[in-house]
């Protein structure tokens, strides 16, 4: 289990522009749980791994909070952090301004270079490659750099025969990079094909939200697919489906519970159990090709 005495990473403020605002919490302020409406003290919530102590609602976490929560202390070695998004299309929307400016503002707001952090680390002393998406960075969307970093992570896992863990949190492909973004689905999936051929295990963890092109590519290709409870998981957002079908959807549509029932994932894991569960899975795959005698 996580060492509770370990201090949480400093929390950075979030840019409120996106409709699905990220729940990064001001440490000392009270926060209302969006599920049970309980008023929670930010610090207490941090200590409880950002899970509402009353109803179990899982608040979103940023990439470094994830790494901090899951990996052995000080075991994380980031790589490919020098990759920055370019602007292959010279994309400008008169609603949102130039893409280049949006990137710059997200970098400042999040302290991240992109929506994906990748590196090597250890869980319960077992080394692995870890890829974490951060929803704060343009909705965790996948453009060239996200795709490249994920692919580099997969290729490193293949080459070094290290298990791979990818933690998804994304609205899908990044429109501002057009077809370059879509093609990252193929690029990452092709890299996973080679990982699979090499017999290296891949654990995919789906967190709130995992949708669109991310859900329809690497995140569904795990040998084991886990999800946090109550996460929005689906190809299309429920609201878009409702608009297209002109009807209300059942309440649990496109949640972790829905995709579990539909046979799409292996199990739902409460955040407090994530680290030991991933540890168990790593151990089980690690002993896969052993012999009895």
């Amino acid at each position, binding site marked *: 289990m996580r060492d509770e005495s370990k201090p949480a990473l400093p929390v950075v403020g979030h840019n409120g522009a996106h409709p699905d605002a990220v729940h990064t919490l001001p440490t000392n302020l009270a926060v209302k749980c969006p599920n049970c409406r309980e008023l929670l003290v930010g610090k207490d919530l941090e200590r409880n791994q950002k899970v509402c102590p009353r109803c179990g609602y899982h608040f979103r976490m940023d990439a470094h909070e994830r790494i901090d929560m899951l990996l052995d202390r000080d075991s994380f070695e980031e790589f490919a952090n*020098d*990759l*920055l*998004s*370019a602007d292959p*299309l010279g*994309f*400008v*929307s*008169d*609603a949102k301004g130039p893409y280049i400016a949006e990137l710059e503002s997200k970098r400042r707001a999040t302290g991240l*270079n992109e929506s994906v952090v990748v590196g090597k680390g250890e869980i319960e002393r077992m080394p692995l490659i870890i890829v974490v998406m951060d929803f704060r960075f343009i909705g965790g969307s996948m453009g*060239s*750099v996200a*795709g*490249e970093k994920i*692919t580099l992570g997969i290729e490193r896992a293949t080459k070094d025969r290290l298990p791979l863990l990818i933690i998804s949190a994304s609205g899908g*492909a*990044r*429109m*501002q*990079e*057009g*077809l*370059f*973004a*879509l*093609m*990252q*689905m*193929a*690029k990452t*999936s*092709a*890299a*996973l*094909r080679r990982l699979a*051929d090499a017999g290296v295990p891949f654990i995919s963890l789906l967190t709130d939200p995992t949708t*669109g*092109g991310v*859900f*329809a*590519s*690497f*995140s*569904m*290709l795990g040998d084991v697919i886990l999800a946090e409870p109550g996460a929005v998981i*689906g*190809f*299309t957002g429920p609201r878009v*489906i409702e608009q*297209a*079908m002109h009807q209300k*959807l059942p309440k649990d*549509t*496109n949640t972790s519970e*829905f*995709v579990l029932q*539909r046979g*799409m994932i292996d199990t739902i894991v409460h955040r407090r159990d994530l680290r030991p569960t991933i540890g168990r899975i790593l151990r089980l795959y690690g002993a896969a090709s052993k012999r009895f005698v």
Partner: protein
Amino acid sequence: MPYDLEFERPLADLDKRIQALQRRGDRLRPDERTQLDGLRIQLDQRAREIYRNLTPTQRVQVARHKNRPYTADYINLVSDDFFELHGDRRYADDHAIMGGLASIDGKTIMLIGNQKGRDTKDRLERNFGMAHAEGYRKAQRLMRQAEQFQMPVVTLIDISGASLDLEAEQRGIAQAIAESLFVMAGLRTPIVSIVIGEGGSGGALSTSVADRILMLENTIYTVASPEAAASILWRDSSHAHKAAAAMKITAQELLKLKLIEEIIPEPAGGAHQDYAAAAAAVKSAIIRHISELEQLATEQLLEQRYQRFRAIGVYKRETVGASSPTT
């Protein structure tokens, strides 16, 4: 075919005059005959000129034209025999994707394509070409069979986007698309994909993880339909024309960005003006590209396919300096 798009008005006018003369048939005077020939040349030239300079939004209109040849039309015109294979062997037969064994110049290939449907009933039955999970799984089955029998795979892309309904979610459309990408990435036989109309989002990508991606002249391939992109980026789908321009979705722009291998020229005025000519161009492209790919050993083929997608992406390195993008 009539010229019915707004930017085609000059062509429609010319065409009207040609039709009027033609109706008179044998009764034309010699000078009228000369006039007719002149008008025909003029129409052809004018059509080429207009089509050479279409805006992205106009290109979208042509790509979606209701008379445009669909997969079934190309199958008819390109193959000497076609035996359609049905069903995913799991749940249903999805009519939004069709595929089967096609004989082209004495050789059998696996030909798979999105099919939108021509009349209202057909369109509904085919869900306007928007496949469900079972459609992608049928395509996977056919591709695996192609691998087993060493048939090359040719896919025709014509889908506005993946299906957006509850049933699609229930049966795992995302899983099906992901698995398609996975299957195609490792398929041990040549794959050529041709965008014949709209290539929209994951629905299009799911059948185009190919060794070569070709596009007909008046087609688009995009991460999301212009309408969907506009409603995300402009919060209003009526800005679709802006999204269409900003996202660089036309064959011409994508060739410049090196995201596709080749543009297949269309007859003057678009593929819907001359099905036979369009199909002939598609057929010769298929034969040429498959022939080239068949020269490669399987491991080479797979390595090239991997590198083709591996190389896609434009980014820069912080340390090197922010102004030198790497492709």
